């Protein structure tokens, strides 16, 4: 007895087929489907054909058309799906493109070197020359010519590292100390060059500071110096505002606070708008909305006199900024010592 004849007809069978076809994913499943539906023996279509053999003429008329249409549809659908599966099959030369690539090794830039270059590029764009200078200095270039004579109280502000034995290098005073600021470069440059001057000097400086979250005995500084006729404090503000925007993003405001440095008059400490809260006040800026970033001012006439410039003829501005400080702020680094540990887990967070 054939169950098909009594249970369902070709129309219901077509529904069943469509449902089964929809589940086919592989060649093997398609082959099984083919056998089940249009195989020579035991398939749905074969069963319908067998049933047809014993049917009445009236039944043959209606049932037979349905069975034949089912057979055609099944064969066409299987052929079509076969084509689809063939198109999906991976060719022999295929690679798994989701495997990781064979990356050539590439080093990572040190964050301080990134800032140094970025600042250098900003000022090169503004028409400055970028200079470097000796790290072992003499007393004259580091202090005296910068209006800090031996008895000057400002020397208390900087705890200086001195050499055990002075070094005699070239002409000039014996070198006795590690430069405490890049300002020493101002003097070296102005001694050898007439105004106008427009330079930044970048490099390591040294102070006798114990290591902690915010201090290291060696750190890096950017010194800027512009000298010429009619250079003003407002020019300094415009320049530093441009630098702040280039370093910390458009719209970063700057604020000048009067301060004191022996080598500038007037002197100003410069704050940028807090980069975290944009001036609203947060923990990072101690609720003030401002973060101190550098010291600056108009070059003191005594400095010009020391290098043989006439302070009645020219004026100038100078500023000094800590590279580490910029990096700490820019990237949210919480411990300055990380810059000197050279831990690859830290360095690899920075690009090229």
């Amino acid at each position: 007895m054939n169950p098909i004849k009594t249970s369902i007809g070709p129309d219901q069978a077509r529904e069943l087929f469509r449902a089964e076809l929809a589940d086919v994913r592989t060649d093997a499943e398609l082959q099984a489907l083919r056998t089940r539906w249009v195989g020579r023996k035991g398939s749905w279509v074969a069963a319908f054909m067998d049933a047809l053999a014993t049917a009445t003429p009236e039944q043959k008329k209606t049932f037979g058309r349905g069975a034949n249409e089912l057979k055609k549809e099944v064969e066409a659908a299987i052929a079509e799906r076969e084509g689809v599966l063939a198109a999906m099959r991976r060719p022999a030369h295929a690679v798994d493109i989701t495997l990781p690539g064979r990356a050539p090794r590439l080093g990572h830039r040190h964050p301080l070197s990134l800032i140094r270059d970025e600042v250098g590029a900003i000022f090169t764009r503004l028409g400055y020359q970028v200079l470097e200078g000796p790290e072992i200095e003499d007393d004259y270039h580091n202090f005296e010519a910068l209006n800090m004579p031996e008895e000057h109280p400002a020397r208390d502000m900087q705890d200086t590292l001195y050499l055990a034995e002075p070094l005699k290098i070239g002409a000039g005073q014996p070198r006795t100390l590690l430069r405490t600021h890049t300002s020493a470069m101002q003097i070296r440059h102005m001694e050898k060059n007439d105004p106008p001057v427009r330079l930044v000097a970048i490099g390591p400086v040294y102070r006798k500071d114990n290591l902690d979250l915010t201090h290291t005995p060696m750190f890096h500084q950017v010194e800027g110096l512009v000298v010429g006729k009619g250079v003003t404090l407002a020019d300094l503000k415009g320049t530093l505002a441009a630098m702040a925007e280039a370093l910390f993003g458009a719209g970063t405001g700057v604020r000048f606070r009067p301060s004191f440095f022996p080598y500038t008059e007037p002197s100003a400490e410069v704050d940028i708008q807090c980069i975290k809260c944009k001036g609203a006040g947060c923990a990072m800026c101690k609720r003030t909305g401002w973060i101190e970033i550098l010291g600056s001012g108009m070059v003191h006439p005594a400095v010009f006199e020391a290098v043989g410039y006439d302070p009645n003829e020219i004026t100038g501005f100078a500023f000094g900024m800590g590279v580490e400080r910029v990096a700490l702020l820019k990237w949210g680094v919480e411990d300055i010592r990380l810059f000197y540990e050279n831990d690859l887990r830290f360095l690899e967070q920075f690009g090229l």
Partner: protein
Amino acid sequence: MKVLLSWIRELVDVPESAEEIGKLMSVRGLALEGLEPHGDDVVMDFDVTANRPDCLSMIGIAREIATAYDRPLKMPEERDFSPAGQATIPIAIENPELCGRYAGAVADVKIAPSPDWMQARLTACGIHPISTIVDITNYVLLELGQPMHAFDLHTLGGRAIHVRKAKPGESIKTLDGKTRALNADMLVIADAERAQAIGGVMGGCDSEVTDATTQIVFEAAWFSPASVRTTSKKLGLRTEASMRFERGMDITAPARAIARACALLEQIGAGKATDGIVDVYPNPQPARQIVLERTRISGLLGMPVPDAQVERILAALGFTTAPHGQGWTVTVPGWRIDIKRPVDLIEEIGRHHGFEHLPSTFPGVQQAPASSDPRIARDRRVRTALLGMGYSEAITFAFIEAIAAGPFLGSDAPVALANPLSEKFAVMRPSLLPGLIDAVSHNRRHGRRDVQLFEIGTRFSPRGETRGAAVAWTGLATADHWSGARRDVDFFDVKGAIEQLAAVSLVSLTFAEADVPYLVQSRAATIAVNGTAIGVVGLLDARVGDRRDLPAGDEVYVAEINLDALTAQAPADTLRTTPLPRYPSVVRDLSILVDDALSAETVRGTIRSAAPVTLIQVREFDRYQGKGIPDGKVSLSFRLTFQSPERTLTDEEVQAGMQQIIDALTRDLQALQR
């Protein structure tokens, strides 16, 4: 400087809150460091810059606040000593260059605790109350900034004061109970017999005011900053007084301070001044006058400041102005020892007019910018090349431990620091390698297997500074990848990196085997350009690594070159290209068997000297020892390229050239062609 808000409000009418005052003063030159409630009052802590000793006082801070808020300053009450009374204590200054002025006054006193209000103010400002007289001197110190002292008149030997240098062997027991030996450069305040105080630093025990005191001499003086600094440093004794005298005090202030102290004395009922003020001022200094031209103000600041504002600010700060030519003659008050030039006045005007009014402008350009230090571009080139070769950039401290520097010193003495922060930072690095080795060690100890680092920085020797580049590499040389074979770093990886650096600098290097104290023998070479040694390459000696806590068994390959020496040998920027070859090249491979002690350099040299000029390149492409090769021999394979700029080479020519080479190898090196 800690000031009490109520005290400030006595001197200037500022109902504004401490926070508001702090905020404004922070942009007027007095940064507020801290605010602390003190009962109903507030202690404001202002950061006073080194040039402003006048602001180490209530009156100084109040004057700044009064100027900022444009309100009048109310001076504290002084005792009127006019007409001048009779002086009853003779004062003699023997060294007017060290003590420019000395004022004193005698008073009958009652020693008791000072009134509560005075004690409270002193306590709030961090000074421990003692008794009426001592508290009055401290009160005046805080209020006016003028240090004062009081001697018990009856303990002075002879009713006289001599300001003189200490005598040989003289000593004094100071108020802190210590006996201090004095030297002949130190200034003392003495009676007729012996030193009773160290000028500007501290008083002595013998003449200390005690409960039994009934008559005192108030002292207020002006001492030379340098003298007080030297004495205080030599004695290791810093006091509220010495700290102020060191920075420079107002030479016009001593008599005013005495008058104020006597007013307080009478106000609190602690006694009465008996005679007039004795004021010894051997070389009176005229008040300093500065001519300030109007145009200089806007010329320096880049913002206009109206004349009326200039005059208001200067007057509020205690200057007097008189019109003069295109500006003013400005008379500087005695307490403004920092004001010496027109620019100093312009700063006062600028900061009180407000830096917030500064426009943002740019300096004009008069000429093309000069070129930058050529080292910057060179270092960038080297840095970029090393990053491209997989080395990450390190920056290490320029001072290192003496023991770490040892192997790298060569015949030089170390450049040592006189006052290093610690033994870890005792000498300036002679080489970048100690720092890099420490960085490798740090990474290895933090679980990193492969470490590949470089540093570009300064090295120090007694001859000066040189810029170097150094690399260090340990671990895998190959990429750590699912697909491939792995290999540890070896000598040739690091040598290759250095060769690439030379290539980007357009120089060629020679390598020579060498003994280097910190490198493993026979895996170390010196690097030279045109016969000038510029560096080393090799395997780090395990003992050196061990001392820097490098894990045992780690092989670290290192190299260091002197970039300044490399640059000196690099050709000037005269690169001229050669045209591309017009005729084809011919490539021949050659395999030979030679003694394995022969260096590649020797074999290459023999090939080159025997070859015709048409041999343009020799490249080792295989080196094999093992199965099929006799002991002590090595099989070397070379790829030789022949080319002529003038014509296409014939087979016969190339063959003849090859034969010459083979003959030479056989004859000179006993090579066997394979």
